[in-house]
């Protein structure tokens, strides 16, 4: 099989399989079919990875016929968005879609140059493709069990799963196309397809909330696409090209180029739900959990950061770059702080996603080899851990009936396996030596280098955000593991496919962290070099070193095993050693959390979580945060002119 066939499989197969699973209405039939598809995707992406890894960047020029097809599909999509806007009487959508319907043909019709190369697949693209295909496929497999339960819970009859799987699976194809595209027109097409899939997946349950959230997601993403069109227009006008690689390696960095790139980055920010666009991602959690997991981990929002990262070589050492770094760091800090005040688990995760994307964007803005490598590390590990956490929360929700952190108290005794996986997920998000924190560490190391005048603000915001992250995750873990002395009895229903994917992701999160040295040295660093940076890391002994720091991976793993794994396995209490919880001596007996009240009643002890909402209140903080976000975005564009 040639590499080009693989590319074809990775982009087109999801659409075909999506279409087929739309037609296959029987669950029993769909299941093996989708599992087989996932396997093919995983194998194909690994294969393509090896091809690119061994033979270098792959360029490909599909037949020019595709250009007409793409134009046609684009027009159809824009028309559809217009239709959605009109039927829902959503004037903003109508306006944005109408603008697109005029401007898109206006810029694309007169353009007749042969675009070369149309697809440009370097290591960064295949890393993204791996993340999309591997984690995305696992999520799709997870969805098989999940959606059946979901429809049983919500009494959906007749089943609407075929629509769901059509969009869910097509999403993967669109994402793969997006990361392979080198022509801005192709990029635009896939960009719009992800918007479409996202819109349909969010509104899947057809509740009022879901409809509202989907429209919000639609208009915000359309706004981003408008910026993309304007950017393409500018690029055509000024540089007569729609090729990303030409654009970023043109060599002349002037205001015209920077303005174009700034517009593209703006598009990326909308997709990555950065402040003030965070609303659509927060709203998106009304969708069934696999959707949230997919949107937050491997697809959709990652498209936004991917675009910024892809363009980063184009604005090295410019004010634009600094502005992007400040913006990203700001988003990282404020969303981490906001997450402290949230008790809805999915909302906490959503804020955590936005924060981590902000961190990635910040790294792209710092724009040194180390920073870019850190950004790629974060993309990979964040996708794994966040996908895992969302799926866990979804499973918990199906078993407990709530996604509120308050209702997860003591879950470790009720659902030990699931809570264990959740803890692994959170620890991998939160502590060294796991990948996400390694990325954060590298990010802070990169931010400490005074490459811009404002580096000290960037690094200050990063460390403050980092401390906040610790608080909200530790708080949540605390709720999960809080148990009473008498607690016992698990009521876990272990659906094999769902639990299998969860386990796989958990193993992936830990295992890949363990293998971070070969990963970084063999894949991430070369990927950064391939897009034009110097190497970020080198290996010193067994440690992974930056120019001014070192991360001793394996010794730290040994320490964590000694610190947590061994005590957790070894420490057991004999019945004689168990004593009551201290409650000022008014306990009724040793083992139960019941105390004697003033009138001799027996009162059950209740403990609740703390969210300090007087300080971290979303509603009152949001207007300031959004205002600051808008100001920073304005600065981004002003920075271009200066």
């Amino acid at each position, binding site marked *: 099989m040639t590499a080009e066939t693989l590319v074809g499989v990775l982009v087109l197969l999801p659409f075909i399989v999506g279409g087929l699973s739309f037609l296959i209405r029987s669950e029993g039939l769909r299941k093996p079919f989708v599992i087989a598809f996932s396997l093919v995707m995983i194998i194909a992406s690994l294969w393509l990875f090896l091809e690119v890894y061994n033979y270098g960047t792959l360029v490909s020029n599909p037949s020019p016929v595709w250009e007409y097809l793409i134009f046609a599909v684009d027009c159809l999509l824009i028309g559809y968005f217009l239709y959605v806007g009109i039927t829902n009487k959503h004037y903003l959508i109508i306006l944005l879609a109408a603008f697109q319907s005029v401007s898109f043909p206006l810029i694309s019709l007169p353009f007749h140059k042969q675009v070369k190369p149309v697809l440009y697949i370097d290591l960064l693209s295949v890393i993204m493709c791996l993340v999309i295909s591997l984690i995305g496929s696992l999520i799709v497999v997870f969805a098989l069990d999940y959606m059946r339960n979901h429809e049983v819970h919500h009494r959906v009859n007749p089943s609407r799963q075929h629509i769901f799987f059509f969009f869910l699976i097509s999403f993967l194809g669109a994402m793969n196309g997006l990361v392979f595209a080198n022509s801005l027109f192709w990029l635009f097409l896939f960009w719009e397809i992800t918007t479409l899939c996202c819109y349909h997946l969010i509104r899947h349950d057809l509740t009022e909330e879901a409809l509202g959230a989907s429209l919000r997601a639609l208009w915000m993403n359309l706004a981003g696409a408008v910026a993309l069109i304007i950017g393409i227009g500018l690029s055509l006008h000024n540089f007569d090209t729609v090729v990303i690689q030409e654009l970023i390696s043109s060599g002349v960095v002037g205001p015209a180029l920077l303005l174009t790139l700034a517009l593209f980055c703006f598009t990326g920010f909308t997709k990555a739900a950065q402040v003030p666009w965070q609303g659509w991602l927060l709203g998106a959690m009304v969708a069934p959990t696999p959707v949230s997991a997919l949107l937050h981990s491997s697809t959709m929002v990652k498209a936004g950061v991917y675009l910024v990262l892809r363009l980063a070589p184009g604005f090295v050492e410019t004010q634009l770059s600094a502005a992007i770094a400040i913006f990203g760091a700001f988003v990282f800090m404020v969303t981490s702080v906001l997450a402290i005040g949230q008790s809805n688990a999915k909302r906490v995760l959503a804020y955590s996603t936005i924060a981590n994307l902000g961190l990635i964007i910040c790294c792209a803005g710092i724009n040194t080899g180390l920073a870019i490598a850190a950004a790629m590390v974060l993309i990979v590990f964040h996708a794994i851990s966040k996908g895992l956490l969302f799926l866990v929360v979804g499973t918990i929700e199906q078993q407990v009936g709530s996604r509120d952190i308050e209702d997860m108290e*003591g879950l470790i005794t009720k659902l030990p396996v699931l809570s264990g996986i959740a803890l692994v997920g959170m620890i991998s998000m*939160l*502590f*060294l030596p796991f990948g996400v*924190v390694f990325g954060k*560490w590298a990010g*802070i*190391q990169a931010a*400490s280098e*005074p490459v811009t005048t404002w580096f*000290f*603000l960037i*690094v*200050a915001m990063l*460390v*403050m955000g*980092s*401390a*906040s992250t*610790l*608080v909200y995750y*530790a*708080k949540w*873990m*605390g*709720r999960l*593991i*809080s*148990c*009473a*002395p008498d607690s016992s009895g698990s009521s876990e229903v272990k659906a094999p496919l769902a639990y299998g994917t969860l386990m796989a992701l958990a193993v992936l999160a830990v295992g890949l962290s363990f293998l971070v040295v070969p990963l970084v040295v063999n894949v991430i660093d070369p990927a950064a070099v391939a897009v034009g940076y110097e190497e970020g890391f080198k290996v010193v*002994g067994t440690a992974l070193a930056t120019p*001014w*720091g*070192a*991360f*001793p991976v394996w010794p*730290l793993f040994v*320490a*964590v095993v*000694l*610190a*947590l794994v*061994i*005590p*957790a396995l070894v*420490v*057991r*209490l004999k019945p004689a*050693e*168990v*004593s*009551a*919880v*201290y*409650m000022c001596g008014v306990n009724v007996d040793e083992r139960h*959390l019941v105390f004697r009240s003033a009138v001799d009643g027996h009162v059950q*002890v209740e*403990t609740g979580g703390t969210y300090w909402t007087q*300080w971290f209140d979303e509603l009152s903080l949001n207007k300031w945060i959004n205002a600051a976000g808008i100001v920073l975005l304005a600065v981004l564009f002003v920075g271009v002119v200066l």
Partner: protein
Amino acid sequence: MNGSDILMALAALALAPLIGGILRGLDRILTARMQGRIGPPLWQPFYDFIKLCAKSKKASHRGPVVWAWAYLVLTVTAWLLFVLRQDLLILLFILAFAGASLALGAFSVRSPYAHFGAYRELLQMLAYEPILLLAAVAIFLKTGSFMVGDVLGFEQPLLISLPLTLVAVLIALGIKMRKSPFDIAASEHAHQELVRGVYTEYSGPTLALIELTHWYELVLVLGIISLFWVIPLWVGIIIALSCYFLEILIDNITARLRWSWMLTVGWSLGVGLILLNIVIVEFFGLGLRL
């Protein structure tokens, strides 16, 4: 890592609790003297430790015991990273893991007082974590490296160019030492509304474990402070000890304050001072690296 490193690590492993315990003993004597009392013998912390070890095991759940081990092992790891002259940021991240373990230990049994303390412990971390990380960044800007080894080899004393950073670190030290006005999570003095906060559910040998960890932690934080003057090292150690004395003094002349106040001080004064220091060093050329 070569032979001498291993020897040094082993020595540090054994010596740190000794030094930490003696420092705690000194603390108790000094505190007593400041209050017009005589105070316990210098070896008191060790008596306490041994006594606790010899008590019977009792716990309301195994969770706190597991996390207490994590707290100890991770803190020791951080200390070893310091002794082996590793990366300051890594060390601080591991220390944060350790600190979170203490809070998680308190969370892991449904005890109202322990939970109370755990939330406050997290708030304390929220307050001091940015200060310590930023201080590491400030040290990096001066020395060009995050590695403790390189900082130790840096000729010029850091204190001269980073005095404000040291002041900020003092705030973090106060919180980390659990001294007034920052003894928010588990007041060192008993008979309060908190009972013993995070430590409420610990007893006997497990409490001894936590006490031991505190010694390691104390020595580690003082070690970080002594980085501010490394050539000759004894000056740095004297600076660290003076800071320790200052904290004891402050402890005895202030009352426990609200957590919101602590957070404000940490995020505004603490972070602000270091940023100011960085700006002065980087842009006004005072002790500029380049």
